[in-house]
């Protein structure tokens, strides 16, 4: 192990000196590996962590910011090389579409478990004590009403392009309506304003996320997800409707790669398949940026310094 870290230091030094490769024996190609970054912190830090790890084995790396849905098409045609956070709840559709079209590889799953669901910050429990049970929420509906909601409770959902199904509200007979914000930033603005004034709010959120550390909070417990719930109307509480259940609670977090990656950058691809972040890792990365206000690349460097035992097997484990 010791030997390997020396080697890592050496190649990091080379990278720092700006001696970049023409084709290096380790990486396979001097073409840059294009790592797409999106608009949430953990993903950007993770991208930089992986990018810096790739640099340790002599690869050239480039970061580019992209839309988080459009990225699967970009990976498929090779504009971007990898995607490190494929969230089951939000991106499974786009990812599967790209898999079907061909050109993208499933590069394995992180240990980190994701959840995307109706969510509220902790203080809302004071207003509506039965939470997180969904029936308790349904009973508190008018507490969440707004001038334009006609007396119904308002559930603040993400942008329409995140493709959440509003059918659940109807299937469960809740006195709620769903409104869609235009971008994630609008979600946080809603949350911040509500929290400042101690007003009840129920909104879409995911975990791990920076809100965990700043607001606390829980997901609404809907009837547990089941495949049949989506297809079989007779399943679940409402015998006449599908969608009478919550989202999957333990969603996957996958990695994806361009199909040419194993050929062009074999070492990097091998490392990518071994790369495996836990929920804790993801939370720490987000915290470095969102709470401690570090820059993304600095946060990545710090994570690498503090977690050598985690990543060195990814890079240097025997074949």
């Amino acid at each position: 192990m010791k030997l390997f870290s020396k080697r890592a230091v050496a190649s990091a030094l080379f990278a720092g000196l700006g001696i970049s490769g023409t084709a290096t024996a380790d990486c396979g190609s001097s073409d840059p590996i294009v790592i797409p970054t999106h608009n949430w912190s953990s993903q950007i830090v993770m991208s930089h962590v992986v990018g810096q790890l790739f640099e340790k084995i002599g690869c050239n790396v480039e970061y580019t910011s992209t839309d988080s849905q459009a990225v699967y098409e970009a990976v498929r045609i090779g504009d971007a090389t990898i995607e490190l956070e494929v969230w089951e709840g939000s991106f499974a559709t786009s990812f599967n579409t790209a898999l079907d079209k061909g050109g993208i590889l499933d590069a394995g799953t992180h240990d980190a478990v994701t959840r995307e669901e109706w969510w509220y910050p902790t203080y809302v429990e004071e207003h509506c004590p039965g939470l997180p049970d969904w029936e308790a929420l349904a009973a508190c509906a008018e507490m969440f009403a707004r001038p334009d909601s006609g007396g119904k409770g308002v559930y603040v959902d993400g942008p329409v392009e995140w493709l959440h199904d509003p059918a659940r509200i109807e299937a469960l007979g809740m006195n709620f309506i769903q409104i869609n914000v235009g971008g994630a930033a609008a979600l946080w603005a809603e949350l911040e304003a509500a929290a400042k004034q101690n007003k009840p709010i129920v909104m879409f959120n995911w975990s791990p996320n920076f809100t965990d550390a700043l607001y606390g909070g829980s997901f609404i417990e809907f009837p547990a997800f089941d495949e049949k719930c989506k297809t079989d109307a007779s399943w679940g509480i409402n015998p006449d409707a599908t969608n009478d259940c919550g989202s999957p609670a333990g969603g996957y977090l996958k990695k994806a790669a361009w199909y040419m990656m194993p050929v062009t950058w074999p070492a990097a691809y091998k490392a990518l398949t071994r790369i495996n972040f836990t929920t804790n890792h993801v939370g720490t990365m987000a915290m470095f940026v969102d709470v401690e206000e570090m820059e993304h690349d600095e946060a990545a460097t710090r994570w690498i310094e503090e977690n050598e035992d985690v990543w060195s097997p990814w890079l240097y484990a025997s074949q």
Partner: protein
Amino acid sequence: MKGYAWLGALVLALLLAKSAGLLPAFLDELPLHLEKSSIDTLGDAGKEAYTELVPFGLILDHTFEFMREELGVSLVTRFVSKRLKELIDIFDNILRGGRKGLGLSAPPWTALLVIAFILGYSLKGWRLALLSGGTVMYFAIFGLWKFAMETLALLAAAVPISIIIGLLVGIVAYRKKWLELALLPILSVAQTLPHFAYLIPVVVFFGIGHQTGVIATIIFAVPPMVRLTLLGLQRVAPEIVEAGKMSGCTNLQLLFRVQLPSARNELLLGVNQVIMQCLAMVVIAAFIGASGLGYRLLHKLQSLKLGQSLEIGVAIVLLAVVLDGLSRAWAEKKRDYAADLPFHRRFRYPILLVVMVAAAYLLAPYFPILEKVPRDLTVTYAKTWDGLVDWIVLNWSDGLTNFRYFLIVNVLAPLRDALLYMPYPSVLLLVAGLGLLLGGYYSALLTLAFLVFIGLAGWWDRAMITAYMVVFATFICIVIGIPVGIFSALSERRAKTALFWCDTFQTFPSFIYILPVIMLFQVNDLSAIMAVIVYAIIPAVRYTVEGIRSIAPELEEAATMAGCNTRQRLVHLQLPVAIPHIMLGVNQTIMFAFSMVIIAAFVGTIDLGQQIFKALSETNIGKGVVLGLCVSFMALAVDHLVTRWARERRRLLGLD
């Protein structure tokens, strides 16, 4: 008047028939649109089945697909994209080092400071020197250096390319009448097409990444340059061209020695417009991968760091003000008075520049602070700004609740429902009537054609929602903006202040104030409308001030001699004479409102803008472009009617 009476009667008949339940469905609603009852409850508007009477989207999809796959356009675009990336890498490398491009190491930040300062001083004097030097300082001490340099590299590529393309196209269009005729409508559409509708084809053809953002910026910045080149060349007096010909100019000589120099003013205005358009795109291009200040800003907004976003926004405004100031100053330097002076006097600024930059390089190794601003020396006032926003939210929200409730329940919802209630033929008839009234049959047919496209494309109801937000926002802008403009125009000093704030706010990235607006008003149409008002009120104020200040002094003099007091002068002279210009301001307000209402979809609306964002995310090229055209056509219809009216009015007032 008979024609209008008929149209009015028809509209009334349609409405009466509908309220009596006698209106046949095909005259009421276009097939398969967003159902009214579902607008309130329509959570996932994306699920809504929408079909087009004419499948414009599919046609476009196939056309683009054909161009990409069969004609090999994508080979060309990919090639362009790659070359452009290399170019940007070189600029990027010169400005901030790194391994890309030429492989140079980063220059000391003080070198750039010195350059900015001397450039400002040599072009205009101390004030510009302080402004441009101060801006560089600002980047350094607010910790925005890296991002500002990325943005500068982007501009260094985008601005010259836009100018060159604009010039070339403008010149050719001036020479070839058919091209001009073909180009004018394209330019009109291009200038009213929402930014986000552009981005989709750009992504499809050029891929993702920094260079794609630059390409989007260029496409956005070229149309005003083309227009102004064309205008400038057309305005060159025939006598001048004649004189050139008599001196035996070849065609090229005529162009470069006679026509272009004579069109100087318009060309320089074009250059200025290009710079402003590029800066306006900084944030929007970040949506498709442009890095720099815009990307930084979007990311900070995404984690609700409003204070930091504000600091980035100020950096963008400063950059715009400085580049504007420098380019104007450079343009105004007309003659080389120093031509006869000895070498060291003639080139004193370049010499000074070289010496100072060399000094910066030589001293930097010994004084690290000259090389790079250490992180612990950077400052931020973000917490203060965050605190201010918090305070406002905490203290104003309750007071605003009633206001919000009143507006939404009693004004906005009824207005929206009324527009959606109207059977589509009645809207068409009303618009056609307006066209007939203001510009005759041609105008009526043109505006009608614009609206019919929207109906055929299947986006009628979404378009009505967009229209209602624009109408209401414009109304408020007029009610507030014109009086503010009149008040400002009454004294020279106030007028200058007002114009300064107009300039500043116009380059301030609108995304920043969208979030505080949401915090105050929550996610609903009202927030979107508020965001639109903040932006669209600028031309209402500006044109009012300009209109009144630019009244011929003889007229003012005559009014004074006739014994007018301030009020009489305003009511009987200034306003009537300025009204055509003010109406152009109203027109601009409407154009700004159309462009901003799409950006305000960032709040969360259920109009065309929401669908454009969605199309961008899906990379759905046909749908995105069709939606963009719907917005563009509505804007063009209004634009046509208002400019018709203003022109007629100016003619009647004898101002032309």
